[in-house]
């Protein structure tokens, strides 16, 4: 870890407790869905909060939730990149990406035939970026503007990404393969 020693003045500490700390659950929930591992999620969230403390003096906004969630997601993506390092890195592509694993045709058919696959499993098959917008929208109830803030992409991209995420999820669940959405 780099950067200055984490330090908060008494006033900053008060503001941190008020604006950021209440979103510890939200932070963990997001990390948990992005990394899909409890231990790694805990590590990422703690690191994210240390970063948040370190950079808190630069936080001027009112929306502490979007702010801490954006730090958490960046920390998680760094961790995911590290995890993939050594293996081949598949950069996320809005248009072409569907399921996270490149499934061979028979496997894809098998996946599709598992109509009874739970939502959780279906979500797990999505690319991280799709899983992320679904969690932020459905579990966290964020607006497109807030999601744009967290993920650092334009609102139009949030809109299309969410639509695609929902479509891919239905495909993964075997309930929407025929739908032209």
């Amino acid at each position: 870890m780099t950067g200055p020693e984490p330090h908060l003045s008494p006033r900053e500490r008060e503001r941190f407790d008020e604006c950021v700390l209440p979103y510890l659950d939200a932070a963990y929930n997001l990390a948990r869905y992005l990394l899909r591992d409890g231990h790694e999620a805990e590590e990422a969230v703690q690191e994210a909060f240390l970063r948040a403390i370190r950079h808190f003096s630069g936080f001027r906004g009112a929306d502490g939730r979007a702010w801490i969630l954006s730090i958490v997601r960046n920390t998680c993506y760094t961790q995911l990149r590290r995890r993939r390092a050594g293996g081949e890195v598949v950069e996320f592509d809005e248009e072409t990406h569907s399921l996270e694993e490149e499934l061979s045709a028979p496997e894809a058919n098998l996946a599709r035939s598992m109509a009874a696959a739970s939502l959780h499993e279906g979500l797990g098959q999505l690319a991280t970026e799709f899983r992320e917008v679904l969690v932020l929208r459905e579990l966290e109830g964020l607006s497109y503007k807030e999601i744009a803030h967290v993920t650092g992409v334009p609102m139009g991209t949030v809109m299309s990404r969410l639509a695609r995420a929902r479509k891919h999820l239905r495909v993964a669940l075997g309930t929407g393969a025929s739908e032209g959405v």
Partner: protein
Amino acid sequence: MASEHVLGRLSPFLDDELDPVASREVSRHLESCPECSAALARQRELGEGLRRDLEYHRAPDLLRARVLRDVHAAGRPDRARWAAAPQWRWLGAAAGIVAVVGGAWMLTALPRERADDATTREAVSGHIRSLMADHLTDVASTDQHTVKPWFNGRIDFSPPVTDFASAGYPLVGGRLDYLRGHEVAALVYLHRKHVINVFVWPVAGADGGLAPAVTQRGYHAIHGTRTGMAYWVVSDLNVEELAAFARMVTAPSGKP
């Protein structure tokens, strides 16, 4: 608006994120198009399913304690050295052992306690109180050599403090608490994400072993005495593991 355009907008329509004009057009189309309405119903079902079936993962107590510790540490003007220490690795590290010499802390003994209902009730209340946000620990550290001296000057006895991380019961910190109107030391441990509070105070000549666990409000409390100290060990952990932990805590020289 044609069906294909409507289908492409159902997702933001459902999220109430379309501009008013587009939203009205979609609504109008839906009134007269059963296919698009059915697609909307499926979309809505998916969202409801996600909100209903997906688990919202709340931060585990261990993580909460660690983040709070970092925040506390950052807010302290004289930042203690341990605050910047690398996180997590300690879990695997074997704990050092402090030999606890009993008897030295009986100078100001509280009235001798029995394992009675009132104390149990207060110990359980103290445990529940401690789980409320931001009040688990006054000194948050996994280092017994930090926690033990922290009590110096805060209470007039020195509680035995041992990290049992190697046995799966890491020390998380300590704080001052009150039981039966007296200041007592509270040591906080974790076991598989369960928080364990150990309340300690001196009693004259006490060396009576462990009492059977008592259950109140879903929490288990075990009372023990050992070399001049009274202990209340409280947690929602299962009785067997809590009793095993209580035996370690009250063992001679606190060996795991």
